[in-house]
């Protein structure tokens, strides 16, 4: 069994190496026609840019996407500089150079990668999936009888912030940096997925398609790991199934199919303000110009945030979204599960968390307010804040850096819910509802807690669960995403996630159950509480 496991690991590492090496392969050359067509298709008015591009890239052979894109970007820079000097603003290309480079590279790929899409898919995704499953499936036997098996988590360099964890962090961070800021460098990955993309939405794969496909693949494979690890725990099985369903169907398939039907691709479960650009002008314009479906999406998006979200939180707690539906939560609960113990449990972290997450919520609301005011009034700023500036700032710092690079990249060292805990404005909103108006709580089972610390250790949100449990108090915290792991790892059956009457949900206790210190006084207390 162990041999199978390690074979699987070797295959997975091989697949990952090939996946990485592919970035350096391939040939890029753009014919005169390709460049002209590209210029026309994009409605570019600068003849200078076309001339520059024809000079630097046409009929030249580049042996990597980096050199190709670099040539394209220098042509773009040259022409932009000239136009800016002459104040020919309509001829300046405002698109980010790396995105511009990506788009032309996407049309200019030749050679090995483009010609062997199927083979390379199997060598990367295929082998990766097989290797990972070979690594995971033997756990059915290796883990022994069903039950909590957290053995050696703190002895392992992958899960105890060792060199493996740091290695994974660096890989993930670089991955996100390229994805967000230099898609031209990862254009080769998109070629591998072109056939699948064409089948789904009719067009070639973008870097976002690669990300979406990879996201689903990783969630499914790591979901299998969850199914095995928590096979004794039906709550975990149901929850894992739910996040997989919502990711694959709602976040991936439905938007792709909508795109293929010439509708705006929309993730129906992605609620504002997590979906921070929902009220951006381009989105509102796109939706209002898409007929009935566009209007439906616009109305649904507003109803989702204002009615569905708080109502569901009232009945079930914020878990219905964060650990049953959400895509970020879905990745955190599958890929991120091995890292959950690395969240910081200190009081200082809790204080920091409250400032940052509510700050992001305020930021997103102010941004939306400014955007909407400017949209309807035609102004370009509101209360002294420029609409374009605040959108760009939010997209860059929160959308890309916080949610992506830090949010997922930092899993191995800072735990799997860094974004959800410190950054997600939707989580902040859900949390406020959960804290003040909800039927959800984690019930502490009387006096049964032995303060062992498993619950706090494995709380991905960094809640010091034990601090409540050992006092006999229920856990009512805005940040709790209801993953249920504290209850699962408790050796004494002390914790239960449940939805019940609001009355008595918060139950401060002086003396724990089981100690009849003073029966008359205790009776008085109970009366007061009820």
């Amino acid at each position, binding site marked *: 069994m162990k041999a199978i496991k390690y074979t699987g690991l070797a295959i997975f590492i091989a697949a990952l190496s090939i996946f990485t090496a592919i970035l350096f392969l391939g040939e890029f050359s753009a014919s005169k026609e390709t460049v002209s067509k590209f210029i026309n298709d994009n409605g570019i008015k600068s003849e200078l840019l076309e001339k520059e591009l024809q000079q630097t890239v046409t009929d030249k052979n580049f042996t990597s996407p980096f050199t190709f894109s670099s040539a394209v970007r220098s042509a773009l820079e040259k022409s932009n500089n000239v136009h800016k000097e002459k104040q020919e603003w309509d001829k300046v290309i405002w698109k980010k150079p790396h995105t511009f480079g990506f788009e032309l590279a996407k049309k200019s790929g030749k050679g090995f990668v483009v010609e062997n899409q199927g083979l390379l898919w199997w060598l990367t995704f295929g082998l990766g999936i097989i290797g990972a499953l070979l690594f995971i499936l033997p756990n059915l036997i290796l883990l022994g009888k069903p039950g909590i098996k*957290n053995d050696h988590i703190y002895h392992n360099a992958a899960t105890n912030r060792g060199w493996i964890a740091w290695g994974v962090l660096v890989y993930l961070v670089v991955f996100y940096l390229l994805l967000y800021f230099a898609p031209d460098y990862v254009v080769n990955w998109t070629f591998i997925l072109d056939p699948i993309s064409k089948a789904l939405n009719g067009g070639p794969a973008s870097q976002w398609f690669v990300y979406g496909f990879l996201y689903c693949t990783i969630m499914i494979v790591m979901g299998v790991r969850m199914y095995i690890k928590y096979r004794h725990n039906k709550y975990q099985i149901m929850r894992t199934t739910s996040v997989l369903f919502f990711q694959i169907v709602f976040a991936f398939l439905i938007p792709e199919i909508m795109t293929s039907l010439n509708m705006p691709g929309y993730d129906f479960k992605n609620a504002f303000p997590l979906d921070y650009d929902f009220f951006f002008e381009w989105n509102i314009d796109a939706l209002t110009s898409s007929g009935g479906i566009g209007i439906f999406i616009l109305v649904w998006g507003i109803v989702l945030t204002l009615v569905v979200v708080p109502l569901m939180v009232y009945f079930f707690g914020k878990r219905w979204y964060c650990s049953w539906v959400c895509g970020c939560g879905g990745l955190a609960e599958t890929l991120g599960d091995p890292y959950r113990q690395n969240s910081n449990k200190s009081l200082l972290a809790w204080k920091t968390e409250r400032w940052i997450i509510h700050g992001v919520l305020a930021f997103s609301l102010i941004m939306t307010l400014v955007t909407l005011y400017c949209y309807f009034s035609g102004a370009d700023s509101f209360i002294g804040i420029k609409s374009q500036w605040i959108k760009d700032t939010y997209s860059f710092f929160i959308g890309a850096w916080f949610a992506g690079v830090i949010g997922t990249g930092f899993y191995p060292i800072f735990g799997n819910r860094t974004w959800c805990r410190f950054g997600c404005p939707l989580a902040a909103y859900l949390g406020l509802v959960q804290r003040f108006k909800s039927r959800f709580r984690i019930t502490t089972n009387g006096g*049964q807690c*032995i303060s062992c610390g498993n619950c706090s250790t494995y709380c991905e949100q960094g809640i010091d669960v034990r601090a409540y449990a050992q006092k006999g108090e229920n856990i009512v915290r805005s940040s709790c995403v209801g993953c249920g792991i504290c209850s699962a790892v408790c050796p004494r059956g002390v914790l239960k996630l449940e939805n019940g009457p609001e009355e008595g949900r918060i139950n401060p206790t002086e003396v724990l159950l089981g100690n009849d*210190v003073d029966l008359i006084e205790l009776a008085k207390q109970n009366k007061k509480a009820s």
Partner: protein
Amino acid sequence: MEHVVIIGNGISGITAARHIRKLSDKKITVVSAETDYFFSRTALMYIYMGHMKFEHTQPYENWFWKKNRIDLKKGYVAHVDTAANELHFADKSTLSYDKLIIATGSKPNKFGWPGQDLNGAQGLYSKQDLDMLEKNAPDNKTCKRAVIVGGGLIGIEMAEMLLTRDIPVTFLVREDSFWNGVLPPGESDMINRHIREHHIDLRLGVNLKEINDDGKGNVKSIVIAETGEEIECNVVGLTAGVSPNIDFLKASNIEIGRGVKVNRFLETNVSNVYAIGDCAEQHEGINQRRPIEAVWYTGRMMGETLARTICGTPTKYSPGHWFNSAKFLDIEYQTYGWVWAQPKDGETNFYWEHADGNKCININFNKNTNKFIGINTFGIRMRHEIFDRWLTEEQTVDYVLEHLKDANFDPEFYSQYEKEIVTKYNSENNKQIKVKSKSWKRIFA
């Protein structure tokens, strides 16, 4: 300002310290020779198994003590001079007190077995014991086999720990079934099977004769008394129970028996000296409890109670209905009220076991009045509050079974077995009880 000194930073001593601070402004000093800060002793096993690091077993962050003005002193108390109200430490320093709380817990029992002090023979109680085990049994090359002597809760925990390092374990149990001094036959047998399913070499009804050394002071093997069989091993776990850790009091004026003798107010024979937790011995057991209760929960209750007395509200130690819990490898155990290994006069048991052999419940009730006396539950979590209430209300077993769904505490979506349980009860007792569905109203009544 009155100075309260507490010897021992376990759950009893720390609970007392916290509650004294809540209720008063007294100067508080907690003395320990074991660790700098309070940690959860019951969690030591998880450190060896790699579920947690030592710091995770500390329920309070290190700044907590200073903020709450609870002074911590590391030192080993060698003698208590009650006449001078002074502690004498092993390093010859002294500390005077106005009130003294002894909360020094237990130490593993050793019954004079030949070789019991060899390297590799050890108990598992303190942080030092854990460090020693890490040294003695880091992997299955250093420790090719371990033998555990004593079939109690610590023994089975130690077996579980060693299994995570792939160390083969032989488990010597004096009784003819695991923990059957406490568990009725059904439960005890279920745990026997569970232990064996984990490939632990469980030997029932055997005693340790001696531990042999390898000529260099290390454990080489053990010999079983009954069969004379010699089993080679590198570690011997001595887990045949614990007894109060009070040897340092022998030369003092404080009255001791097996533990420090205390009355219902947890007072010793010396007026300003108290004892709580594992090391305290009641003159008589309270409500069928044992005079010495080496249980986490009772230590905590004594701490809560004594804090009141010390802060001016003399309060009797009055534990409520008995409850306890444990985990045997993968099977969780909870108990509420009294279920004895053998029913007492006038009592009888109703036992149900699930077909998978990993879940069961056992209800003890009065044969004549049907009064519910207690429940053991294995593999199914139950609500403490509900059973505590039912015991106070002196409900019948029929009532308990009828409302069993109210007591279920398993996570959502788990299979529920109340119907199956009640069907069995009905057929055995010729009853027509119908299980009521769960009612929040009743639960929060």
